[in-house]
């Protein structure tokens, strides 16, 4: 490239820019532009089919925030959030501690516990719909077979318990990721710290609480961040378990947004729901990451 006569530093800069150009273009095209366009769309009344859009100002937001369906869906997302930040991480950590102690078969259990995480949600929905079928499903059949027929429920059809039934199936899927992250995290805890604690008389519980758990802080930050995201963006599992038609009592915001945009053809209102979802996610995730990262730094020091 002698004809360009760039200095070494200029050449380094040009190389970096050129390598980043394609990823940035893709990032702008598939991330920044859709977000910007969605925000723009949220101020219009548009059915997604016609060429013209009618300006609405904040009309879509008023309509969405005043809708009972939206408020119930938001409440359900809050329930899922409370659940996701506690149960799958706790289960994942528990399994990781158990598997970490195994001398043999760690690989087998890693595969076993992580496998549900990679199964497509539609398949997960099909499996759990069969398990939860009130007439001939696996769960009710087992309960009846062992004399607990009175405990057999309409797991997905009874509004009071449907959300919790779905949470149980979500546990099966969502525990895999925290498990592998925590397992990897446990292996990074320096052995000498554990030995020193043992010499000082700390039992297993103390060693876990005072040595391993604090050292797992960076892993916990990542796990909880995924949990928050998973709860707010929840779509696939609810969609799959309800044949694509969650009722008003169990619906969450992402399927509601999809239905509003692509089935009712109210793209502007759907975009407003998407923007509200983005704001909620950002307002939860950003402060969390900042505060949690600072705490993790202090633990490291």
């Amino acid at each position, binding site marked *: *490239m002698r004809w360009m006569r760039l200095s070494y530093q200029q*050449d380094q800069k*040009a*190389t970096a820019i*050129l*390598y980043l*150009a*394609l990823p940035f*273009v893709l990032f702008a095209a598939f991330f920044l532009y859709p977000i910007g366009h969605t925000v723009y769309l949220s101020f219009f009344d548009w*059915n*997604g*089919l*016609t*060429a013209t859009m009618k300006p609405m100002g904040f009309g879509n937001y008023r309509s969405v925030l005043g809708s009972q*369906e939206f408020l119930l869906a938001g409440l359900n997302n809050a329930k899922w959030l409370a659940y996701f930040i506690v149960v799958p991480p706790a289960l994942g950590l528990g399994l990781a501690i158990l598997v970490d102690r195994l001398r043999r078969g760690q690989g087998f259990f890693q595969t076993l516990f992580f496998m549900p995480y990679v199964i497509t949600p539609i398949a997960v929905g099909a499996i759990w*719909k069969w398990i*939860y*079928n*009130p*007439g*001939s499903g696996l769960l009710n059949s087992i309960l009846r077979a062992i004399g607990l027929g009175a405990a057999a*429920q*309409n*797991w*997905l*059809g*009874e*509004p009071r318990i449907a959300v919790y039934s779905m949470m149980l199936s979500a546990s099966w899927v969502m525990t895999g990721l925290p498990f592998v992250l925590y397992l990897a995290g446990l292996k990074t805890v320096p052995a000498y710290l554990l030995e020193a604690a043992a010499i000082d008389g700390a039992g297993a519980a103390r060693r876990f609480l005072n040595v391993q758990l604090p050292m797992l802080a960076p892993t916990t930050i990542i796990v909880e961040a995924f949990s928050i995201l998973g709860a707010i963006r929840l779509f696939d599992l609810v969609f799959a378990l*309800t*044949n*694509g*038609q969650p*009722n*008003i*009592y169990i619906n969450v915001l992402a399927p509601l947004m*999809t*239905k509003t*945009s*692509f*089935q*009712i*053809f*109210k793209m502007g209102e759907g975009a407003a729901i998407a923007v509200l979802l983005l704001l909620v996610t950002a307002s939860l995730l950003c402060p969390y990451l900042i505060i949690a990262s600072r705490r993790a730094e202090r633990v490291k020091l």
Partner: protein
Amino acid sequence: MKRFFSKALCGVALMALIAAHGAFAQAKKEANILEIWHIWTAGGEADAFKALTDGFQAAHPDVKLQLRTFSEGGELRQQLGMALMGGNPPELFYCPGPATVLKDFVDAGNLAPVTNVWKAAKCEENFDPSIAAMYRINGDYWAMPLNIHSENPIWYNVEVFNKLGLKPPKSWNEYKTICDTLKKNGIAPSVGTIGWPLPMTIEPFIVKNAGVKGWNSFLNGKLSFTGPEMRQAFKDWKELYLDQLIKDWTGYAWADAAKPFVEGKAGMYFSHGDWLESFFKSLGMDESKFGFFFVPAPDAGATPVIIVDSFALAKGCANPKLGGMFLEYCASVDGQKRFNKIKGSVAPNKLVPADIYDATMSKMYAMYRQKDTKIIKDSGYIFHNDFQDKWKTLLGQYALTPTADVLEKILQELESKRTTSQFVVWN
């Protein structure tokens, strides 16, 4: 040199990405691909569509069919909307009729008219005028009907009825007596399901209280939800439907709900489409073991709510000519024979011989031709999606929590929605 090639590679990759999109449509055209989107995923419905496509393929072996299925129409419309926005729609997609959504697509300029196909296939001569009217918008035809379904027969288990000495009722009082008898004998009067079929189950009670004339007012948005007819319809719906359902009915999808009916654990399958016939058979139920009836309306005999399965041609698709060829085959006697014989529906083409119908569909065919039968349109497709979704959502809410408070709340909400919504008046 190494740096030059690595920078050049980035540029080439970027250009390739941009070129790929345009090449895709051209490749599809050159490969003679006909892409069809439909909703017939399983059982007799899937077999019927396969019979249709096999017939077309035999007549046109050079055409490559690319079929895509969806679990239901809403999901198809969702994907279709995105494909239309992206400028890469399928040639043909399933579209029901009569349907306001068809009109929406026409108004938005997303469909290609198929008037020339209707002329070539002589559809105006061979189809019933009421069917033709469903697809004529602004003087052109916009989709091709394949079959006629009735969505509200009440199916009954013949063995269960015979065992208890029951006969299909001729009035709602007789129907109530049947329900009581079934319950006394430990059999659930009916199966049911939540979700998209739910509005079909309240329709008989709207007709019961408002008549056929009132039903048309309902479709045109003129029937008040807080008026006496609708209030009584909801009361009847609760007493004669919701209170008669099998335990845990909300946990069944429509296909799952057929199993307890087939097994004789429920006496009836209330107000669900005649596509169930092929489904019962696929579950091993002999045709002699199930039947159907309609309870007469106050101002008519049977009032079958019809929906018509059809295909529309998307504007901007790669191979519109192939789409037109398939539509012409759909209108043909051979195509309609192949499809309707297995699907369990009635062919709109009057030239299709009646001997293709089995015993059940022959009865359905005969019922359509009775003098006092009044064919009525399906609310699910007449209402705009916005109103239809509100209707379905609030019905679901009441079905899950059928209290007086919830009823009053939803009636007020529906009335408010009715007065602010637009309705298309179909002839």
